[in-house]
């Protein structure tokens, strides 16, 4: 057994409110040992963040921490503030959810990391600087000499998060508390980050408490799982046991939902017809930036969605997938290319003509709360498209709203509610009902599940699947979540840096990914299986660094800078989307010629 680092007894965090005090964390007893990564999961609002902060004897104003925290033989809650400050940062590191907001915008990264170091260790400025460079290098930041001079706004979210972890690690703490450190990061970056963290914990024997909502992360990186429900610890088990045999209700629910998804077949191939519904041809969109540079968001995208089928558009943030969706909806106007809806060219329509046409193409956005007018009731929101496109009477509209609410699984008593009174899952159902109200032929679903908490996400996917089958919906599903795409979509197109790099039936692309980028993406997926952990696997096709800025695009293959298989020809020669099999297209000459080394990693 490893050395015990921290133990709490009856740890409680309360917040005084107008109606009396609210207990966010209720008598938690837990232990953390050296070299151990412990996952802390639970629904949003279950007190995860309060508990994480509570371990540092901190609570958000006006909260109050009570109970007992024994950290390496010292009782933290009775320690004077001065001593506590010494422990925080030096012995217990903290990484919070919003990386950019946690960094001081007026100081460069090197100074900030150095300050933490110097606050706890007697070192000169120069030594601290060297230490900062070393740390940045350790967390996998390229060119650390240059990066330590960067200010937070010059860093991407992923880089800022890694700067924070180096800050948290700078004084070599015995315990690291990480509160959803990867939420909002792309999958490949998430994998890079967690790999580093896992390695560091292994090497230095740091205990890590990892707060997360993602079971994949738990299965792949954690040794032990804690489940928090309404402020109470309801489960404390080794990861394998937890996945094999959860004891409490919440864990059972989450795991069974996850299990159902794992067993779900890849979306069936037979469904749908071979009549094209939406056809994009050579779509191109650039944005002029203030400094005169040109950003290519979408270059030469052509794809087809058949009647009654669904296409998943996959890629990391910055790949241009959302722009494609907005081009189809004509929320943006394409620079070049055509959008065919059956036999109509949408790009040739005037704005006024297209406004009438909008009832046929509807959309659901990523952030459900933001996409509902905060002052409008559910009923008003859902019936707005009916007001605009139909001449229904009041009674007919009310009838249609009831029908729609029923279709998306909402009870009739939410009709009069404002969006702020609904959960994220309910809000997104309202958005979906609004999109379905005019019985559109085609839907653009722009990451409709990614802003939802896990349970709501799974329910949303089930709902979409159900609606697809019942109503025969055709849609394009924009997402960075590969497992969702596998379940929902018959076809998939993978985008990287404004281009489609691989396209084909989902079953084929997922079973035999050709393009190195597709492989890396699939490799970054964290499966909910503690017996098949990413950290135990070898990553042949892992990508370096991050998606480059789409301002100065490389001459040759856009992935060449990150691709482990790249050679000179890749950097010189622009890549074309070529057919490898009748329905499978790939933008990589090596793959087309069949000389790409390394077998497919996912079966």
């Amino acid at each position: 057994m490893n050395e015990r680092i921290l133990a709490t007894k009856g740890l409680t965090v309360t917040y005084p409110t107008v109606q009396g005090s609210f207990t966010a964390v209720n008598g938690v007893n837990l232990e953390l040992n050296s070299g151990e990564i412990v996952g802390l999961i639970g629904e949003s609002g279950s007190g995860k963040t309060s508990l994480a902060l509570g371990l540092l004897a901190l609570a958000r104003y006006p909260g109050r921490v009570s109970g007992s925290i024994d950290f390496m033989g010292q009782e933290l809650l009775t320690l004077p503030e001065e001593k506590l400050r010494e422990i925080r940062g030096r012995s217990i590191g903290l990484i919070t959810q919003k990386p950019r907001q946690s960094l001081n915008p007026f100081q460069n990264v090197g100074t900030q990391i150095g300050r933490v170091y110097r606050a706890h260790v007697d070192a000169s400025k120069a030594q601290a600087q060297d230490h900062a460079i070393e740390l940045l290098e350790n967390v996998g930041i390229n060119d650390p000499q240059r990066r330590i001079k960067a200010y937070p706004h010059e860093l991407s979210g992923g880089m800022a998060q890694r700067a924070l972890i180096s800050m948290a690690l700078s004084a070599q703490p015995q315990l690291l508390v990480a509160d959803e450190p990867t939420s909002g990061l792309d999958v490949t970056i998430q994998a890079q980050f967690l790999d580093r963290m896992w390695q560091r914990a292994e090497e230095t024997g740091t205990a890590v408490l990892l707060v997360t909502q993602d079971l994949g992360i738990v299965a792949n990186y954690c040794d032990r799982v804690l489940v928090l429900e309404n402020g109470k610890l309801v489960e404390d088990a080794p990861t394998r046991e937890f996945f094999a045999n959860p004891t409490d209700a919440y864990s059972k629910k989450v795991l069974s939902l996850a299990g159902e998804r794992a067993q779900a077949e890849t979306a069936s191939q037979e469904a749908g017809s071979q009549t094209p519904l939406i056809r994009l041809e050579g779509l191109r969109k650039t944005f002029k930036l203030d400094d005169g540079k040109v950003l290519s968001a979408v270059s030469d995208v052509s794809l087809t969605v058949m009647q009654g089928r669904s296409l998943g558009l996959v890629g990391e943030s910055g790949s241009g997938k959302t722009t494609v969706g907005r081009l189809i909806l004509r929320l943006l106007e394409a620079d070049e290319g055509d959008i065919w809806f059956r036999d109509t060219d949408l790009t040739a329509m005037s704005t006024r003509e297209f406004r009438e046409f909008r009832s046929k193409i509807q959309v659901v956005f990523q952030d459900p709360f933001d996409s509902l007018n905060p002052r409008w009731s559910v009923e008003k929101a859902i019936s707005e498209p009916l007001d605009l496109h139909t001449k229904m009477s009041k009674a007919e509209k009310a009838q249609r709203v009831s029908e729609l609410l029923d279709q998306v699984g909402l009870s009739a008593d939410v009709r009069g509610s404002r969006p702020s009174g609904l959960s994220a899952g309910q809000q997104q159902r309202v958005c979906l009902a609004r999109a379905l109200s005019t019985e559109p032929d085609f839907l653009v679903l722009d990451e409709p599940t990614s802003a939802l908490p896990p349970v709501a996400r799974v329910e949303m996917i089930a709902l979409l699947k159900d609606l697809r089958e019942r109503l025969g919906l055709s849609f394009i599903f924009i997402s960075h979540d590969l497992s969702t795409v596998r379940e929902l979509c018959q076809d998939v197109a993978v985008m990287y840096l404004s281009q489609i790099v691989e396209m084909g039936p989902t079953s084929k692309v997922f079973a035999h990914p050709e393009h190195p980028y597709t492989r890396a993406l699939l490799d970054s997926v964290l499966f909910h299986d503690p017996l098949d952990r990413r950290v135990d696997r070898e990553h042949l096709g892992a990508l370096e660094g991050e998606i480059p800025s789409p301002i100065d695009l490389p001459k040759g293959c856009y992935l060449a800078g990150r691709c482990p298989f790249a050679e000179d020809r890749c950097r010189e020669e622009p890549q074309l989307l070529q057919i490898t099999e009748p329905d499978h297209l790939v933008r990589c000459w090596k793959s087309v010629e069949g000389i790409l080394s390394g077998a497919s990693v996912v079966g």
Partner: protein
Amino acid sequence: MTIPQSPPVKGEHPLENLADKKIKARRWYHDKLLVTGAIIVGIALFLAAFGEAIAPYDPTVPVGPPSVPPSTTYWFGTDTSGLDVFSRVISAPRIDVTLAVSAAVLSGILGTFIGLMAGFYRGVFSGFIMRVSDVLQAFPVFILAMVLVALSGRNLTNLIFALTFLYTPIFIRLTRAEVLTQRERAYVEAARAAGNSDLKIAIKHVLPNSLTPSLIQLSVTVGFGILLTAGLSFVGAGVRPPNPEWGLMIANSAPQLVLGEWWTSLFPGIAVSLTVVGFAALSNAIERRVATS
């Protein structure tokens, strides 16, 4: 299961007491603020409507000997012309408050609408509007008001227009700033995708969500308007005598102050200050309410 609660320090945690007290103190203060503001504003509005009717004497004709100190017959005394100061003080809101409220409401409506358009349709028009309001706001308000009144003639309608002209840029700026954040939100895009025209989006969706700053500003503007009206009258660019008006009363009686005739300027002075504070307090309280809800 009961969890043994072991408080870290003896007795209650100091932070909690502090927090509770602070919260209560704040709540009480804000309610106080709201109540005070509402009472003063209520009295001001009441007097604007009925002040002249309930006044004991006619405020525009001499009703007694000049320069009588406050007494039971003349509560606030009489001025050098023998006008009753109390009657004049409570009749003045009919001019002061009516003028300020009309100017504030007019500039609120105008400014909010222009601000909505300038924020929603960014471009040459928007830039032009903003530069014009920059220029207007760069002038000292008081001087500009005097010039406007001097140019257009000294009457009530012109005073209202002058004040409206001066206060509109404030509402343009506030509304535009809010519209700029609102128009980036996804519900605007969703409204467009649903098939709304731009104008419909602006008026149905963006406008109602951008009103809060203007509504808060409205009350403060009334207060400023009263102050400005009184100020203009004080220098002779506002209301004509013998109309009852606070600024005018102070101006007429200021020379008498050195002779010991304090009541003719003190009471209208208090009235102006109280009213301005009342409108400002109301605005402030509403703002806090909105911010915390």
